[in-house]
């Protein structure tokens, strides 16, 4: 029965693999610089690694927005996000999985009467705006640097081509890792509070936590999406959407990967906090919008001509339409799940749980000020333990 509920997350993972991975290897495969099989294998492996090793950061932020604590609720929320993505894709409207899942979680909050953490919501929406801007900034700088160095490098054109291929492969691996780390929250984040998996120990070697097992499942779904459907999307990206030179493609993928990594890396957050620097919020962001931002960065680096304002308009309208549509679908879906299919979409929250959640919030605040003495992993394990209290 548990597997049935996880199906909507698995479907969301599959569609992420089918669509978003084209942003990483689309140009490389479309121009035949890298074979699809190589791209698919590298993507699948590194998405799994990124999701399992670094996926918790962005998931934690989604959990603060709304802790969907019943598996049927998680199923409905993930399904609402998946339907939104599928429907808007069919209508050829720009859609971001990250924005859809946020809207669906807010829909659950409205349905169950749970409060929406406004600070977290503001943080999330700010990153949606920041993501393409940051990607543009990175792409601008990296492209300028590359164009300054490359003509002076005296490397043979054919050798440049082979370095470019290797570069696309390495940066693609990094991009896949960042995608897994950042976007696994979209796929499996809503299932974390109602996680059916328990920790798995492999003798003294290592332990795979319940959350990591959930992420592994989601990452495998992404991998299946890559192998089964992403080829035609990659060809579309490579041949129709972006007419990029291989060098420009490398810059775009690198910029996108850096941005996704920045918004997913707990290690970086810890390092910044320990040095008294402002931290980067760990939030799932749209890889497609990061790519669009990076391309605009390159256009600006070339002189700023040819920016398609229509595309920009579509991207920014998506920030509003996608979460709203997802919230409405989520609300309606939850109504049917609860009243028609008689499924429990929310666990009742008692005062003890509220106090424990409050304590968790305090612990988070304490974490930022004395980070060296605070083990984040322990913090999350405490939450998992608390969930088991009847």
């Amino acid at each position: 029965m548990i597997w049935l509920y996880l199906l909507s997350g698995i479907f969301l993972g599959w569609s992420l693999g089918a669509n978003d991975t084209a942003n990483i290897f689309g140009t490389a495969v479309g121009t035949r610089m890298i074979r699809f099989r190589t791209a698919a294998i590298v993507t699948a492996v590194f998405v799994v690694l990124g999701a399992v090793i670094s996926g918790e950061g962005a998931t934690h932020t989604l959990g603060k927005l709304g802790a969907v604590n019943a598996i049927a609720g998680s199923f409905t929320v993930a399904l609402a996000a998946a339907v939104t993505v599928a429907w808007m894709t069919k209508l050829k409207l720009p859609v971001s999985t990250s924005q859809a899942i946020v809207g669906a979680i807010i829909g659950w909050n409205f349905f169950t009467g749970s409060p929406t953490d406004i600070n977290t919501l503001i943080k999330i929406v700010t990153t949606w705006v920041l993501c393409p801007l940051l990607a543009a900034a990175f792409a601008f700088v990296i492209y300028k640097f590359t164009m300054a160095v490359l003509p002076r490098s005296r490397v043979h054109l054919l050798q440049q081509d082979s370095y470019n291929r290797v570069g696309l492969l390495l940066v693609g691996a990094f991009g896949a890792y960042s995608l897994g780390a950042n976007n696994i929250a979209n796929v499996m984040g809503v299932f974390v509070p109602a996680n059916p998996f328990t920790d798995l120990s492999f003798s003294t070697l290592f332990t795979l936590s319940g959350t990591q097992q959930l992420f592994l499942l989601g990452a495998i779904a992404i991998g299946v999406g890559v192998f089964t459907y992403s080829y035609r999307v990659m060809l579309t990206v490579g041949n129709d959407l972006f007419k990029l030179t291989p060098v420009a493609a490398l810059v775009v993928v690198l910029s996108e990967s850096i941005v996704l990594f920045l918004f997913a890396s707990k290690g970086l957050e810890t390092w910044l906090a320990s040095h008294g620097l402002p931290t980067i919020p760990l939030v799932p962001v749209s890889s497609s919008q990061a790519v669009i931002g990076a391309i605009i960065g390159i256009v600006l680096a070339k002189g700023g001509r040819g920016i398609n304002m229509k595309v920009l308009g579509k991207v920014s309208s998506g920030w509003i339409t996608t979460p709203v549509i997802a919230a409405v679908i989520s609300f309606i879906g939850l109504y049917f799940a609860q009243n028609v299919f008689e499924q429990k979409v929310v666990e009742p929250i008692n005062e003890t749980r509220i106090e424990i959640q409050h304590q968790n919030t305090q612990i988070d605040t304490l974490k930022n000020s004395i980070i060296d003495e605070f083990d984040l992993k322990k913090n999350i394990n405490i939450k998992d333990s608390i969930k088991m209290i009847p």
Partner: protein
Amino acid sequence: MAVLFKKIKNLEAQIDNYLDMVVKGGFLFKQGIKYFLEEQTDEFESRLVSIDTTESDADNLRRKIEKRLYTETLIPESRGDVLGLLEACDKVLNKTAETLHQFSVEIPFILPEVKNFYIELTDISVSALEEMVAAVRSYFTDINHVRDHINKVQLYESESDKIAEKIKRIVFRSDIRLSQKMHMRYFALHIESIADEAEDVCDRLSIAAVKRFI
């Protein structure tokens, strides 16, 4: 990955060899014209055979390079330009072999007073060819210097026009048959057209060089 880099090195060497053959063709042409004008028939015929062999080998090598670029899907963005450049260089090499053949077949009468001008015209045209090859090599390894070489080709082409005109003026003011004048005129044109073809290659090259960094 090491295999990929080895393949690339091998292809680089092939392209270099091809360009070397074009330069060799120009050198053999210069020698051939010199021996023709000095009436050293055996040396001339030997240069003719050598230029035919060089031209044929260059054709085979060019086809191999083209095939490899497409089958190994190398340099997808610049592949069309590179192949176009190699084929344009081949036209210049063909022109040198063709012109030498025409000297061999038609055995034109050359006025003694214009022989030195013919030698000078040949030198200038072959220099244009050599600068053209240098420009194409720069396209692959040192894009910033392509323009310098293209400039020189244009200067040589302009100079070849002047010398060709000088030859024609002297020939048509001389006291020989009209048929001989026309014959000499066309041979001056054939030699001059080598520099013209080299300039056409450079026009194409300058666009390809700009495209590389768009």
